[in-house]
């Protein structure tokens, strides 16, 4: 499996949603696709899954354009909020999916439905937001496509269903690794799963690298305000926060010997994300982190 985006641009009228995006997915890994609301994540996934056409550039799946490429469509599964199930019930949709995707495992899908207590007879239009998400993810986990695109998979799910979904996702990935793209705002819930991170900001590709590399680029120190300030001078600070007499600063660079009175911790993906895509002016940045 190899999916590559070349100079991908999407405009809706005057509005440039994605601007000259280039990246490649070629390994059985879990990729995180992150970005703020309106960054262009869903548009990107919809283009990869052949729902909409790019304005410029192209997307190649195993060397061939995905556009109107039936062979590629059978190997890419997109689960997104706008997936249209008409007025059908889950049972019928499962049947349709089993014909559309060559490796679709109907038995497994029905088993998942039972574990999530999804009503198979109920029209999907009558399902709650959470159960619509449940249906999308059980279809996605049963499709066994080489490329799986999950757009906000846990939208509206309760905590129990979210945990169950992550568990099944890991089990499925662990048994047969495929390329999974996970787009979510709940970064804290998935950060241990992601091997690679792609961040889109204002339609541009900001980051495309391994989670390990990304997180090793920075660290946090906290302690007495004056001591933190002394330590930070001359360093590249990406965020700071003061609570009473305690100050925490996020610093880019490798961790040099901090005095023992300062606490040194790693950056979480969520912290790093907020700092990277926050576009407020620096004085407003102070209160975050």
């Amino acid at each position, binding site marked *: 499996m190899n999916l590559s985006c070349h100079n991908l641009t999407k405009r809706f009228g005057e509005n440039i949603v994605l601007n000259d995006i280039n990246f490649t997915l070629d390994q059985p*890994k*879990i990729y995180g696709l992150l970005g703020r609301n309106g960054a262009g994540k869903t548009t990107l996934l919809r283009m990869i899954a052949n729902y909409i056409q790019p304005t410029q550039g192209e997307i190649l799946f195993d060397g061939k354009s995905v556009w109107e490429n039936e062979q590629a469509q059978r190997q890419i599964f997109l689960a997104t909020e706008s997936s249209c199930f008409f007025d059908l019930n889950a049972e019928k949709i499962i049947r349709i999916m089993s014909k559309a995707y060559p490796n679709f495992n109907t038995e497994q899908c029905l088993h998942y439905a039972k574990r999530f207590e999804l009503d198979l007879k109920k029209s999907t239009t009558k399902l709650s937001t959470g159960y619509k998400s449940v249906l999308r993810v059980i279809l996605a986990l049963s499709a066994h496509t080489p490329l799986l695109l999950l757009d906000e998979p846990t939208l509206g799910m309760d905590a129990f269903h979210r945990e169950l979904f*992550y*568990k099944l996702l*890991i*089990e499925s*990935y*662990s*048994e047969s*690794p495929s390329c999974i793209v996970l787009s979510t705002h709940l970064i*804290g*819930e*998935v*950060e*241990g*799963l*992601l*091997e690679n991170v792609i961040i889109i900001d204002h339609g541009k590709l900001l980051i495309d690298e391994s989670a*390990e590399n990304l997180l090793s680029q920075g*660290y*946090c120190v906290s302690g007495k305000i004056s001591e933190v300030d002394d330590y930070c001078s001359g360093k590249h600070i990406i965020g700071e926060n003061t609570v009473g007499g305690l100050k925490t600063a996020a610093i880019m660079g490798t*961790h040099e010997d901090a005095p*023992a009175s300062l606490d*040194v*911790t*790693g*950056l*979480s*993906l969520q912290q790093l994300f907020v700092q990277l895509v926050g576009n407020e002016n620096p004085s407003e940045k102070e209160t975050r982190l």
Partner: protein
Amino acid sequence: MKIDFQSQTPIFLQVQQGLEDEILSGIYGEEEQIPSITELASSYKINPATALKGINLLVDAGIVYKRRGIGMFVAAGAVQKLKEKRQEDFFKQYVLPLVQEAKRLNIEPQKLREWIERGLSE
């Protein structure tokens, strides 16, 4: 075992240390089976590749071994090996922070020695 995503310690090392702790405290006895990669990954919500990396450190150190198609087991003599390894780290990991904290709290060295004696006798 608890995974701390904000720790300076990489997750695969936390997996290694967590399992070592559990072997040392007897949760997994020698020749007993430890959780599979999939179980570890799904319990702690970490990538299976990360769990594997942690386990492989234990395999390389002879603490656990793989039985093809069955799973992973604690090696005979693992507890002794771990104890020796941990003893080497004891001073840095426990004694130095203890002394540092005692200084911060103005605990007199004599008091500290007494407390250690008391701790030993309890």
